[in-house]
């Protein structure tokens, strides 16, 4: 049996390093580079089929067309992803005051497409999307609410599923803390990637985050289920020992399962399209972090609580006498 619980400070400390790095990254602006779904704006992908176009050429062409704010990113062979402020490509869809037939309004995007075609020859607009500020703030709000709701539901369910054990509520809390840890690590990573490579947070990112949350809880419950089994089987077993035995026995399963998902994700990363690359990176990091957090955080938090570590910590800080010996079973 491996001693996980005795080394809980290493595990929690290791996570703390990531936590601090993520917190620092998120504290430095730009906190997260938001995609157009969150900030309002337009984005489109252009593939130039006539000749090779350099990023600089494209940038100056966009400036000529009145979009010096455009951000340009490579997205495949001779293909660029261009982001601009909200384009009035969307004519007002209304006819309430129309007198007779109206000419179809030409959107700004069509003007840009034409302008680029004049300069660089034939091209292919692969996608275009525009989001106004009304929608963008809602998406953030709804996604956050969804995560919070899901978290509360998970706490309640675990509370109920572990109701035969002492302090079932704590199991739910520990699982959710592990989940929040994973979410935070990913946010931190994307904050860093955003500063370094201009990676943006978009709706696909949110979906990936939701996936990771689902996986993290799934993983944590498997470990907790073992603890439940041990504690129900032998109510007098020391809690640390129950945790250690559970972690040891589920270790092969945890690693194998994560490895299986990682295999599929890596396959998609290597073969799948560019469009879902960010999504897969989140998944990859999240799954590794989710596996770690069920071993290194969720379970260790339970042990720490059971041993009243926080109380002891404060007593030590305040210079009080330790009520009992600090020796921990190896």
């Amino acid at each position, binding site marked *: *049996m491996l001693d996980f619980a005795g080394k809980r400070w290493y595990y929690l400390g290791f996570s703390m390093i990531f936590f601090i790095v993520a917190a620092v990254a998120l504290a430095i602006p730009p906190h997260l580079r938001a995609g157009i779904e969150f900030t309002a704006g337009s984005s489109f992908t252009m593939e130039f089929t006539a000749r090779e176009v350099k990023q600089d050429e494209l940038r100056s062409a966009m400036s000529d067309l009145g979009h010096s704010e455009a951000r340009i990113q490579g997205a495949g062979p001779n293909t660029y992803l261009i982001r601009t402020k909200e384009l009035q*490509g*969307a*004519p*007002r*869809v*209304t*006819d*309430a005051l*129309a007198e*007779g*037939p109206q000419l*179809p309004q*030409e959107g700004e995007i069509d003007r840009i497409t034409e302008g680029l075609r004049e300069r660089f020859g034939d091209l292919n*607009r*692969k*996608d*275009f*999307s*525009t*989001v*106004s500020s009304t*929608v963008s703030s*809602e998406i953030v709000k*709804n996604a956050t*609410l969804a995560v919070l709701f*899901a978290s509360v*539901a*998970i706490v309640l369910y*675990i509370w109920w*599923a572990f109701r035969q054990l002492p302090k079932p509520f704590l199991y739910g809390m520990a699982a959710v803390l592990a989940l929040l840890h994973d979410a935070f690590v990913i946010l931190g990573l994307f904050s860093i990637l955003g500063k370094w490579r201009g990676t943006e947070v978009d*709706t696909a990112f*949110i*979906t990936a985050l*939701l*996936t990771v949350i689902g*996986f993290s809880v*799934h993983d944590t419950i498997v470990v907790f*289920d*073992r603890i439940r089994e041990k504690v129900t*089987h032998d109510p007098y077993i020391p809690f640390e*020992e129950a945790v250690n*035995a559970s972690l*040891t*026995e589920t270790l092969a*399963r945890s690693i194998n*399962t994560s*490895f*299986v*998902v990682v*295999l*599929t994700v890596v*396959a998609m990363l290597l*073969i*799948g*399209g560019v*469009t*879902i690359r960010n*999504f897969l990176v989140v*998944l990859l990091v999240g799954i590794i972090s989710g596996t770690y957090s069920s071993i290194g955080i969720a379970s260790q938090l339970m042990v720490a609580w059971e041993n009243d570590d926080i109380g002891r910590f404060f007593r030590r800080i305040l210079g009080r006498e330790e009520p009992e010996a600090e020796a921990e079973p190896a």
Partner: protein
Amino acid sequence: MRNTSTLALFFGVLALTIFAVAVVWPSDPGRYLPGDFWPQGRGLKIGDYERETMRLGLDLRGGAYLVLEADPPPTYDGDINKALDGAKDVIERRVNSLGVSEAEVQKASGNRIVVSIPGVSLTDAQNQVGRTAALQFKVYNENGDLVPATGVVNGQTIAMTGQYLKNNTYPTTQGTLHAVAFETTGIGSQLLEQITSKALSYPAGALPRYLLIYLDEQEISRAQVQGVISSNGVITGQTSFTDSQDLSRLLNNGALPIPLKSIQSNEVSATLGEDSVVDSVHAGEVGLLAVALFMILYYRLPGVLAALALGVYTSLTLMVFKLWPVTLTLSGIAAFVLSVGMAVDANILIFERMKEELRRGRTLNPAIDIGFRRAWTSIRDSNVSTLMTCLILYWFGNQFGASLVKGFALTLAIGVGISMFSAITVTRTFLKMVVGSPLAKNHWLFNAEETASSSSARTAETRGG
């Protein structure tokens, strides 16, 4: 112990899988599979029945997506919700006139209408949706030609159109006649008064006595003018109350009853969608193969069975996607990948438990039963929590028109549900088929032979448990 119920289950699973594969088999397998010897086409056509194709979201097949929001003028005092219902009908009709199948027009919260049209560019979609609807009033002139009905207001000749008609017409009866009552708005009363007065100057039955109403160049009403109408009137002549109802609806919906503005729009070219599909399928194939290989190398015989169960799982899930039908999007594919992980996880949990039991010296049959029983609680709890998360996400997605989140939740929920069936029923049946055969005696095949490391693991387990 190959008893009858195991055999029955085995053949049941086999039949179901064959059916599933027949359902999901791609029409053009060459795109996804190497070689060209695979059966092609959509298969047998029996009467009206033809095999479904997978329903793909806009991100996978290309098309335009628009979110429109009601943009009423400050003075608007009508019922916005009702006006939006009308607007939805109008947009639906306009979109359908494009002749694209599977176009969707949905009302969403926040006074919004979500329009998705596969296979058209955004510009086309916007022109189509925002097209000037023409609810026109027409009359015959002296030469018998159909001309717009006009009136003169402040010296200007203005045509009577849908914009001068309130969208609150309703079907009614006038004595024994079915009728539609209507009201005009703005200068509509002046226009209609002039038009009807002029029509009345002709003898009954003469062509110019008629007032016709056209919607998008289609005649929807033809009635003789009976009297001067200004601010309100009725149109009689429908043969049933249902006809009156239909006409009333058409009149109400002729023009977009409320101004709309586009707040979000999205376009994906068909080639990008096509690439995404092929890439994802290839990646999925490689991923599944890698998982199967890993399971076989690590768990040996049970791994082979789990790999087979994974094949069953994949075909069953895809079959449900196709028959439901679930609109598959990129986020849905991601959910599917995750559910594969969870399906394999259930197997891993069971095998690890089974291995423990085998190493304790049990024979295969009780080891299978105990392994499944002891793994069940964790499979149940972890999957129930995932299903709950799905439910919440689906509800949120539905509430706020976030199709991305909704599709993800639905696909994941279906995947998790089927993964429980596959891990428990399918794998168990396969394992039970092995019981009693010479294979069952070979512990190497179960990676559960007594080795130095495993006996130490056993001591650890006995101590722990």
